[in-house]
Structure formats: C-alpha cells, structure tokens
C-alpha cells in the first residue's frame, strides 16, 4: 500500500497487531497467483485496487462517512445495491474469503461449519476487516441455515437487517420477496436518514446496470478462442466489483474490454493453443480465495466462465430502466433478484439449464463443480448438476474444499487427471 493508514485503521477500531498478521498472511500470495501470469492485458487498475484493498478504498469510505454518508455491508448477491445507492449509501460486499479469527469465531459458532460463515464471524470478532468496521449496518439473508442462524449472533456485534429470501419461485414467493425488498428500502432509509425518490432510484438502477453490463461485456469476450483474459483475472475483477466505486469500476472494466476486443480481433490470447476450456460452478469464491482457479489454470487449462455468485450470478440480467412509479421500480428490482439461480431454491432447475447453455455458448470442454465444505445446498445440488451434465455428455469434476492450503496437492492431481481425461 502506498500511504500510511495506521492512524485510520486505529481510529475505526481495528486490532492493529492482528491486522498486520492478516496482511502478511494472504495465501497464496497475490504476486505468485497473479503477477506471474503471461501475456496479461492491462490490469494495472485492478492490481492497484487489490493492493489498496485496506488502504485507499477505506479512506474513500471514511471520507464518505465524514460527509454523513452511510456504509452498508452485504454477504450475498440478493441484496439490491440499487436501493442502498438510491439512499445515498455505499454498498460493500464483505469478503469472507480467508481463514481468519477462527479461535474467536469458534467461541460463538460450531467448529464444523461453512468456512465462509466462520470467516465473516472471525473477521468481525477479531476486528481485522476495515470494511466491516466501517459498516453502519450489515445485511444478512436466509439463503442457508448456517448464515440465517449466524446472523442472529452477528447482530450482537453490528446491526443486521435480515432479508428473507424465499425457498421456491412460485407467485406467492415472489410476492413475499417484493415485500422484503420494500422492507429493505424502509430499513435503508432509516439507517441513512435519506428518503429514496423515484429519481434517485432510477439513477441508481442505471448505474448498477452499467456495472452489470460492463461485466457482461467482459464475460462475452471470453467466449472467443483464444480467450483474451485469464479466468483468474476475470474472477479478480468480479471480486473487486463488490467493493469498488461503481462508476469508476464500470469505466475501468469498459476500458479493459476495449483492449480485449482488440486482442480478439488480432487473435491474441492468454493461453497455449488448444488449452481445455473450463467453466467453474458452485459456491462463491470471495477475495482472496483464488485457490482452485490458480490450480486449474496452472495445470494448463483456461477458465472461460464462472457460474458463481462471484461471477455470472452477480451481473446476469439487468433491471428495466423505464419505470412509471417507485412501486413499479421496486417490483422490477425484486424480480431481477428472484431470477438468480441460487441453490437455496428448490428446485433450482434454472441453474442446470444455464450450465448446459453456458457450456455451449462458451464452447467449454468441461465443468468443475467447486463447493465449500459444509455447504449443504451446493454439495447436494451437485448431484442434480451431475445428472444433467451426464445426460448432455458434458464432463464434470466435483471438488469440495475450504480455505486451507493442505489439500492443494490432492486437488492438483484430481484437476490434472480431469484435464487429461477430457483432453
């Protein structure tokens, strides 16, 4: 990081010693995973943002707060960012992608639990995340039992607004969800002290759509062979999307896409000719969790799409920008989020159909299903995915892992064997 941020970290209540250890511990190191890649497009901006993850961006949030603005933290792609922005707030996706503060987290949580849940609790209890410490409110949801119950505990330490995400997609579920979106609007207005107007909502819908379109443009370029950008770099951009300034980020992604379009015209790619094209699907890969993509691409394949919350689920589908009333806007916003293919729904056939469609559109040679340990929804749904892909003759490898590094050798063998098998 360029500046000296210790005073700022101290003022927002971080445990400086534990935070120093975190900054040193980010495994595997960013340099090793990212900066050793050959023939990268111009990623300077994104490298800079990661480098300043606990620095400049936090300073921006603090400046926003000093002006009376509020920061709202989220853990899930179901939280409507449009509403937070329309009330003058900044929406930050809290990462939870590294094992941290486990000892503290285990004081309040069972030991065998999803690493993402343990991570967010650890971050909060160990006071090492400057984003968490900047939040005026965090938003929880009911997308799995573990998160649902953990948010009750988290509420002891920071105010949590919980959204009830339905478990089915029937009309009555959609109605429930519309009600939840309305309640969320009221909750956000209360925290920020600002009224959301039809104008402010329309503006934020356009801004967030702009971000989604830029990410979709990037995703679309990866359909080309050779792929003009690696899966690791794409994942990084998708991770940064969750905490960076929306308009600046959108501009930078579009600038990158201009370069990638040029690459496509010139036939420039990031991998050797004939590298297997892989789609990853499953649970979110929150920053700095690059473990499996690093193994996949280090084994000679290229990832062409992420059917993940840190991926397509985050930016697919936009909210209609034409609206006659607040009521109508809230309805179309709610509908956009209800169309996310999360494994919290039963059934979740949209995800299976999507994967088959993606495999075709992206000309994929195989799909790697990657789930965090103890994630019942995705680990069980893997069976549905496997069944569908088998019917369609699409090879699939199923992986279950956590944030530890001790299974890297094992995973490497399995991924390499999968690539040999489909090669």
């Amino acid at each position, binding site marked *: 990081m360029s500046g000296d941020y210790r005073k700022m970290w101290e003022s927002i209540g971080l445990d400086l010693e534990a935070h120093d250890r975190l900054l040193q511990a980010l495994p595997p190191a960013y340099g090793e995973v990212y900066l050793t890649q050959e023939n990268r497009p111009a990623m300077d901006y994104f490298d800079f943002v990661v480098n300043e993850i606990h620095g400049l961006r936090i300073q921006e949030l603090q400046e926003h707060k000093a002006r009376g603005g509020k920061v709202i933290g989220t853990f899930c792609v179901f939280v409507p960012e449009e509403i937070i922005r329309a009330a003058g707030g900044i929406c930050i996706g809290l990462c939870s992608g590294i094992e941290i503060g486990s000892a503290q987290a285990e004081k309040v949580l069972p030991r065998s639990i999803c690493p993402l849940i343990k991570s967010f609790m650890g971050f909060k209890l160990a006071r090492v995340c400057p984003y968490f410490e900047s939040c005026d409110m965090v938003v929880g949801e009911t997308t799995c039992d573990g998160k649902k119950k953990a948010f009750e505990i988290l509420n002891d330490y920071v105010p949590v607004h919980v959204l009830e995400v339905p478990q089915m997609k029937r009309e009555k579920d959609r109605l429930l969800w519309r009600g939840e979106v309305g309640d969320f609007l009221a909750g956000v207005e209360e925290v920020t002290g600002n009224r959301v107007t039809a104008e402010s909502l329309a503006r934020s819908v356009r801004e967030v759509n702009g971000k989604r379109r830029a990410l979709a443009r990037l995703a679309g370029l990866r359909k080309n062979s050779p792929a003009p950008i690696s899966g690791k770099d794409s994942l990084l951009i998708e991770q940064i999307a969750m905490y960076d300034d929306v308009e600046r980020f959108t501009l930078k992604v579009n600038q990158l896409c201009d370069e990638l379009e040029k690459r496509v015209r010139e036939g420039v790619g990031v991998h050797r000719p004939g590298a297997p094209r892989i789609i990853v699907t499953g649970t979110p890969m929150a920053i700095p969790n690059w473990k499996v993509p690093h193994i996949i691409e280090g084994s000679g394949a290229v990832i062409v799409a992420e059917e993940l919350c840190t991926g397509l689920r985050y930016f697919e589908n936009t909210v209609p920008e034409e609206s006659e009333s607040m009521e109508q806007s809230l309805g179309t916003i709610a509908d956009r989020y209800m169309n996310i293919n999360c494994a919290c729904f039963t059934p979740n056939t949209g995800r299976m159909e999507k994967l088959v469609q993606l495999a075709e559109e992206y000309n994929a040679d195989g799909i790697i299903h990657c789930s965090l340990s103890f994630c019942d929804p995705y680990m069980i749904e893997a069976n549905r995915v496997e069944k569908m892909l088998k019917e369609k003759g699409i090879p699939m490898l199923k992986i279950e892992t956590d944030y530890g590094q001790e299974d890297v*050798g094992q995973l490497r*063998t*399995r991924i*390499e*064997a999968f690539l040999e*098998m489909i090669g």
Partner: protein
Amino acid sequence: MLSAGIDIGSRTIALVVTDGKEIVQSAVVDTGFDPAKKAAEMAAGLTQAVPVTATGYGRHSAKNGFAGHVITEIKAHALGAGRLFPGAGTVLDIGGQDMKVILLDAKGNVEDFQMNDKCAAGTGKFLEVMAGALGYGSVEDFGRDSLTGAPGTRISSMCTVFAESEAVSLVHRGTDRRDIGRALHASVIERAFGLIQRVGCAAPLVFTGGAALNPCVVQLLRERIKGPVLIPGDPQLVGALGAALSGLENKNQQ
C-alpha cells in the same frame, strides 16, 4: 526403444523401464525424507540413457529435474493396469496416502475417477499406524495374522486417529487382536467400496498399490465386491509402468 517411468509416491518410489512389451528393469524403494533426491538417484542409476516420465505426488519436482514428461497417477494406473490386464474395467489403487478408483472405457481410457479427499483414512498409512497400535512388527505380519481373525468386530471410525483409539479400547476390553485387525482391514475395504460405488464398478477390477500385497485386504475385497479381482505380479509397479508406457506414446507422436 526403451522408456522409463518413475512413480514418486508418499511411501515408495517405483521405477520401471520397458520396451513396450516387457519390463526390462524395475525397482521399488522407500521414499525417505528427500524424495526428489532419491528419485533423481534412481533415474541416474539407469543402465542406459532413456527418456523418463514421472508420476505420483512428487511428479512435478521431477519435471524440474530429470523427467521429460509428467502424467497423473490416475492416467498412469489406467495405462499400466490396461497393459497388464487388457479389458480391465476398473482399477482400485490403494497407496501409501491415497486411494483411487478409476473407471476405464472399452479402449482402456479413463472414463471417470474418484480419489479420497485430503486425509489418509483407508490408505496404506492407516494400516501402518494400526499395525503399530496392535503391536505388529510389520504390516505384512499384521495382514497375515488378521486373515485369521473372526468377523463380528466393528471399527466405525474412518479417521486414522479415532480408529486407533477405537482399536486400543477394544484391546482393553480383551478382544482378540486378530479380530480387531480384521475389523480394521474391513474398514479400509468399506471406504474403497464407497469410492467404487461412486464411479460404478465395471468388471473385472484390477487391484494395485502396496495394499494389494496384503492378503487380508485382498480377501475382504473379493468378498465385498463379489466379483473377480485381478492382482498384478508386482502391484507397486503399475503406476511406474503406466508412466513408462505413456513415454513411448509420446515418442510415437513425435
């Protein structure tokens, strides 16, 4: 034309030189504490200069040194087992620290595979630890003696540490150690059977790896799958043989 394959496993390193028809040279040594060095010494000891293909968990360190190619142990075992037993349907390999099941198609290519996850439950290491816990001087003695154990005793834990304490408490209850031994071997087979079920077992099954030298494991496996189990003359060489054969394929392509 000769080709060498080296399988750098967690417990042993195996080397095979083949001309594509016969094994002309082979060796198996303990991995020790410096596998890269040991493997390099074995490769350097080859009587003539032949291209080396490496497999096993130490394959990538060999690639940086003496090996021209690397393949995974999945592919290596498929190739090796397919050569020794043409028409093989499934390969079960129980090595020092992993267990894998490979389903082969009609041409002997890998169609699907399963591996145990990161812990060493149900592998050669598990049997080694249990042999020690029951006071056997060697895994060989442990396997031979357990063959005479009576069925009926059960070890429910798959975890090496928990299974060991289960075995110890059975000892304290006065259970015959041969019966405990049999139960421990049976737990390995249960784990293998679970993996076999996941890929689907196509007959005949080829059983490779150090555990295939253990008569109790072999007998319990035969009873469990109720089908033919084919065991190579030297089950520890199959991965290295496969690697050597893949080296010949590479040559033919060039």
